[in-house]
């Protein structure tokens, strides 16, 4: 199954619609709730990043028997120092974003925590593509 969503830019009010829809579909497909939660949380963090930092973007999801694969792409400024961005607590978010309860520097670390495979393709000035893979037959952790 393939799903595609456009992620609107800089509007935190509606951010999370795509993740919410994907979660609903995963539940309807009868996928293991643990896998649904892993996919939903990591996609939600990536979607928020695309809204906050990337000026919006796209979400493309492939669901097959083995895995859920979620691509979130934006054409924002890219991540200058990925190693730093992966550290808990490091954030470049604005005060406005912090007032909304985000920008705590936990987005990428949370994605890494919940995804079975996390791939990040980013270049300064050329945007960011985050690929989250959740394996459907992963051993219980």
């Amino acid at each position, binding site marked *: 199954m393939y799903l595609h969503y456009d992620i609107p830019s800089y509007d*935190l*009010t*509606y*951010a*999370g619609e795509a*993740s*919410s829809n994907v*979660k609903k579909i995963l539940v309807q497909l009868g996928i293991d*709730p643990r896998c649904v*939660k892993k996919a*939903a*949380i990591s996609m*939600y*963090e990536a979607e*928020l990043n695309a809204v906050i930092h990337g000026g919006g973007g796209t979400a493309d999801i492939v669901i097959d028997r083995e895995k859920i694969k979620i691509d979130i792409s934006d054409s924002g400024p890219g991540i200058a120092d990925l190693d730093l961005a992966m550290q808990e607590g490091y954030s470049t978010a604005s005060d406005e974003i912090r007032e*909304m*309860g*985000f920008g*705590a*520097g*936990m*987005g990428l*670390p*949370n994605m890494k*925590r919940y995804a079975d495979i996390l791939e990040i393709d980013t270049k300064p000035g050329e945007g960011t593509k985050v690929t989250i893979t959740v394996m459907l037959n992963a051993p219980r952790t």
Partner: protein
Amino acid sequence: MKLSKVAEILGAEILYDGGEDIEIESACGSDLMSDVMAFVKENVLLLTGLVSPQVIRTAEMMDIRAVVFVRGKVPAQNILELAREKGIAVMSTNYPMFIACGKLYSEGLTGKGVR
């Protein structure tokens, strides 16, 4: 602890009951939603001073079915509507975060999350 007991301890106003008096096993108090998403536990109650639709979104992603807004904060109608749509119970207590958490903890809600 039943959700109705949580409401009683906190003297909370129930803005939406979620349709069911669910069992709460642990609680997470935070204004930072990404910290909430690092909290792994089942049957969680979320206490927050943040009033935003993203509180409900975060609860939805985390399978959190009850949210308490502290310091007497009352969410706007659009936030309540989103909560109703998702079946997430919402209440408001006048207690500040520390006191609200302390009251629940001392009444036996001591289940901790793991990271």
